[in-house]
């Protein structure tokens, strides 16, 4: 076992989650490596401390208020299916739902990049800086619709977590004929290292006659690999 592997096993080791053989190999490594020994001590200290973090106290009248609420609550029975714990899905079922959007995303990105240098119309409704891809050109995109989360009538935001590919897939395939500006991208710590959230606003105006879809992809940053502004 090398240091990198040892380091990644340390937390599991201190929680007694390692298999016997991995544990043996880790211990062998620790015996020979003072640096990892030190790290092991630190990780152990973290694991131990985490279990004794300060407790947050509930208000004294918690139960009393709860019982009052129960007493005053209307007798409601909502569908219980949503409340029941579900069996954890299998990995195949869980990740399988990303397959269709991923395929759509890849084909769309290839497609968008092909079109990008050609399309250069500026849509006056959107202002300078937007490069319009003519609607007819994208009619061959075959992707399943992805439902947006509704936030407010004119402001919609779409969450994506993994990469640019996901965002393009969701954005393009969920177009229902309206035009949206992507006002910006918010990097969100909630979403981890690759978490970006486009902030969308529905644009005024209507689509050019005869078009069913309308994509505006202004700038792809070669360094960041992100579409920085877009309306669709």
């Amino acid at each position: 076992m090398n240091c990198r592997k040892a380091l990644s096993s340390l937390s599991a080791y201190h929680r007694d989650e390692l298999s016997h053989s991995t544990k043996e190999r880790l211990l062998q490594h620790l015996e020979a490596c003072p640096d990892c020994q030190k790290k092991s001590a630190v990780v152990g200290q973290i694991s131990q401390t985490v279990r004794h973090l300060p407790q947050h106290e509930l208000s004294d009248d918690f139960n009393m208020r709860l019982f009052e609420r129960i007493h005053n609550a209307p007798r409601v029975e909502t569908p219980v299916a949503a409340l029941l714990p579900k069996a954890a899905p299998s990995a195949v079922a869980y990740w399988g739902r990303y397959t269709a959007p991923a395929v759509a995303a890849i084909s769309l990105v290839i497609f968008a990049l092909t079109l990008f240098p050609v399309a250069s119309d500026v849509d006056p409704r959107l202002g300078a800086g937007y490069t319009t891809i003519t609607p007819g050109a994208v009619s061959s995109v075959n992707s399943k619709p992805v439902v947006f989360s509704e936030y407010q009538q004119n402001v919609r935001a779409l969450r994506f977590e993994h990469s640019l590919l996901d965002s393009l897939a969701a954005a393009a395939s969920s177009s229902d004929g309206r035009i949206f500006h992507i006002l910006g991208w918010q990097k969100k710590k909630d979403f981890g290292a690759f978490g970006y959230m486009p902030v969308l606003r529905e644009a005024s105006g209507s689509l050019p006659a005869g078009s069913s879809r309308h994509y505006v992809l202004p700038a792809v940053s070669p360094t960041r690999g992100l579409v920085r502004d877009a309306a669709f």
Partner: protein
Amino acid sequence: MERQTKGNSLLQRDKLPDYQLMEQIQKGDMVSFNALVNRYKNRLHNVLVRMLDSQETAEDILQETFLRVHQHRNSFDFRFAVSTWIYTIALNLARNELRRRKRVQFLDILDYSNKLKAPEEKVDNSPKFMAVLDKAVAKLPQKYRQAFILRDIDQLSYEEIAQILSVPLGTVKSRVNRARDMLRSMLKPNMEELYELSKGSVFTLGIS
């Protein structure tokens, strides 16, 4: 005599396993319900506070959780563990709250930075490293934080967490591992301090 029997059974409620309490609750026994609330309220409250960074909201959600447990007591399916059921309800409510916060944030993008929920200030008597660790946990991205809190702080099993979060077992494991790695990276500046502490703790290096 009757009073004594009653008194004994009240004491015994605390010792009853969850499913027996649930049977009593289904018969309308509020004392059993009270015992169930007491059994889980503090644990769950701590999970919720760490997830939501707010004592007040955590308490509201906890109230709502137990209210629903009570409302739906007759629909409880005894194939499941009572604890998993309660946690699932609580975590679903907490996640709804987090989604609601995101909506609010994005309605007014210009005011975005002001609306990010800052952890509440609280009097902190704990040792410095504990406060540092507490803050580091609060900085973990939400989905990793959830798994980490349930596993390493609340000490649930991976199987239970997979059911509660409704994600595959492997995903839970990788989220917990990722959270632990992130935490370790965040605590790098405190490594020397933690090392010194480890020397004085009952904890050993794990090698003999």
